[in-house]
């Protein structure tokens, strides 16, 4: 917080601004200018960000490898139509986050804490920190897998990830952070390029939209597939991130329409790039692709190189580095927002590190902690990476239920509360996610204690 005092000004009838307010007002003045002069594309350019970042941030290392594994093991049939459905679900959830952030100007963590009590606030923050830490480890693993293709080791992966976190934080402005990460996130399109380079049969891709039945395999494998694929599209960090980032960006109710465009564009891009990874992975189906599961070393880029040429392997490896790097930035940011909001101190990229010490420390600290894990010799990285999405799916219902409650809170949202149709879809999504997560959790547990066979 700045040295200016926060008191009511008798002239303006509004509080005296802090430095954070001044930085945000600079961004808002550009939005007002674009709106007043009816510069629609410029306005769109100024207001996009949180939605695209949440969606493309979730196309992270584990997710892209999960999609490619699905393609390599089962082909295109079930997953090509399933991925767009999941991103449509993600759109419904993320639109609520954006709307609540724009209307209340507050992050998810602080609203839950203040509106529903400390227990829920800290429960949500704890749930988020656990899943974020596990996911961040998986992101560093993804960068390592991508770099291994170029014969670079863990040290380079850690240095790259941490350098990016520190570099993006060094501007003291939300706008600067957002634009750098947006620029990086667009390289998620490398997975689409990889799909083109493997020269898929266009007819096969088109006919896969006919939605074939569930892929074969044991019940537990199916549940794992569903849980991990859901965990690859909707996660607790996205909810925290988009609401807090929308508030930090300074969005207001008049920007909700553009916020919806931003979220929809993010969902479409993420679905297209996710299908790209799936199609690239499916090129391995006829070449014993089932042997390449999860994070089995640098298997994917190498295998693609043998099947579709060095170009496809290189592009896929670079895509993994990008997916991991962008997710490290967005997931660290969501942890930092949650930490600042729950502790009740300044939590904005528009504040200086001195003014928002907890925010900046959490941002770097959580990335450092995850980086330290991947440097531990013999750490179970493969298991951590594979379970990251599943854990996120299991813990997701809490975040979703509280999000729907916030979006229906007339005291907070006024006329911007959810419509009945949004509630119906939201509740269906929660039930679906809860059932898949619970079914996998219970089935795996019963197998682990040998009550049922696999």
């Amino acid at each position: 917080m700045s040295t200016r005092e926060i008191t009511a000004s008798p002239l303006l009838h509004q509080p005296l601004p802090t430095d954070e307010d001044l930085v945000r007002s600079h961004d808002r003045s550009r939005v007002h200018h674009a709106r007043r002069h009816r510069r629609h594309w410029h306005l769109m350019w100024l207001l996009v960000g949180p939605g695209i970042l949440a969606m493309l941030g979730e196309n992270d290392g584990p997710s892209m490898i999960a999609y490619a594994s699905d393609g390599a093991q089962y082909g295109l049939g079930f997953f090509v139509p399933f991925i767009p459905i999941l991103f449509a679900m993600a759109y419904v959830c993320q639109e609520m986050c954006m709307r609540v952030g724009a209307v209340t100007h507050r992050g998810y963590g602080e609203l839950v804490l203040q509106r529903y009590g400390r227990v829920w606030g800290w429960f949500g923050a704890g749930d988020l920190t656990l899943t974020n830490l596990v996911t961040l480890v998986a992101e560093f693993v993804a960068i390592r897998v991508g770099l291994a293709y170029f014969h670079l080791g863990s040290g380079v992966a850690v240095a790259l990830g941490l350098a990016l976190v520190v570099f993006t934080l060094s501007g003291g402005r939300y706008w600067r952070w957002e634009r750098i990460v947006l620029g990086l996130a667009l390289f998620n399109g490398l997975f689409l390029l990889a799909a083109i380079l493997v020269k898929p049969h266009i007819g096969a891709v088109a006919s896969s939209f006919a939605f074939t039945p569930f892929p074969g395999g044991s019940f537990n494998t199916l549940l794992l597939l569903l849980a991990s694929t859901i965990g690859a599209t909707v996660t607790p960090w996205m909810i925290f991130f988009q609401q807090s980032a929308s508030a930090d960006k300074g969005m207001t109710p008049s920007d909700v329409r553009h916020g919806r465009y931003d979220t929809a564009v993010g969902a479409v891009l993420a679905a297209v790039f996710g299908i790209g990874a799936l199609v690239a992975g499916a090129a391995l189906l006829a070449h014993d692709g089932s042997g390449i599961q999860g994070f089995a070393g640098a298997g994917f880029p190498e295998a693609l190189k043998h099947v579709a040429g060095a170009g496809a392997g290189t592009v896929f490896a670079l895509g993994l580095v990008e997916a991991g790097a962008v997710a490290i930035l967005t997931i660290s940011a969501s942890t930092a927002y949650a930490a600042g909001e729950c502790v009740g101190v300044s939590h904005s990229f528009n504040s200086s590190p001195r003014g928002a010490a907890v925010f900046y420390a959490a941002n770097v600290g959580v990335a450092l902690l995850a980086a330290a894990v991947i440097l531990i010799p013999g750490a179970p990285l493969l298991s951590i990476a594979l379970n990251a999405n599943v854990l996120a799916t299991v813990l997701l219902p809490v975040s979703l239920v509280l999000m729907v409650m916030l979006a229906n809170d007339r005291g907070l949202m006024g006329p911007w509360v959810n419509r009945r149709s949004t509630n119906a879809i939201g509740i269906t999504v929660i039930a679906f996610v809860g059932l898949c997560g619970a079914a996998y959790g219970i089935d795996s547990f019963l197998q682990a204690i040998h009550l049922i066979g696999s």
Partner: protein
Amino acid sequence: MSAETPLTDAAHASSAIPERDLQAQERHEDELIMHLERDQFVAETSRPVARAPLSARARAGLWALRVFVVLVGLMVIYTFVQQLH
């Protein structure tokens, strides 16, 4: 807020230009700040919102959700630890 200190004439003269700059900057800041809605100010968002009144049914539902998530979460963590062995 820092207390104002009286300035000497020389100090007034030497600070005339910076003072003009300062006034111009403050005017610019005042114009900029008009673009923020009142409830967007840090001073406003720092004020906590009131606790939501929850019905007994909603409270029971939230407790059931808490128990459900803790139980299933523990199952997943147990399975994960078992896999490590």
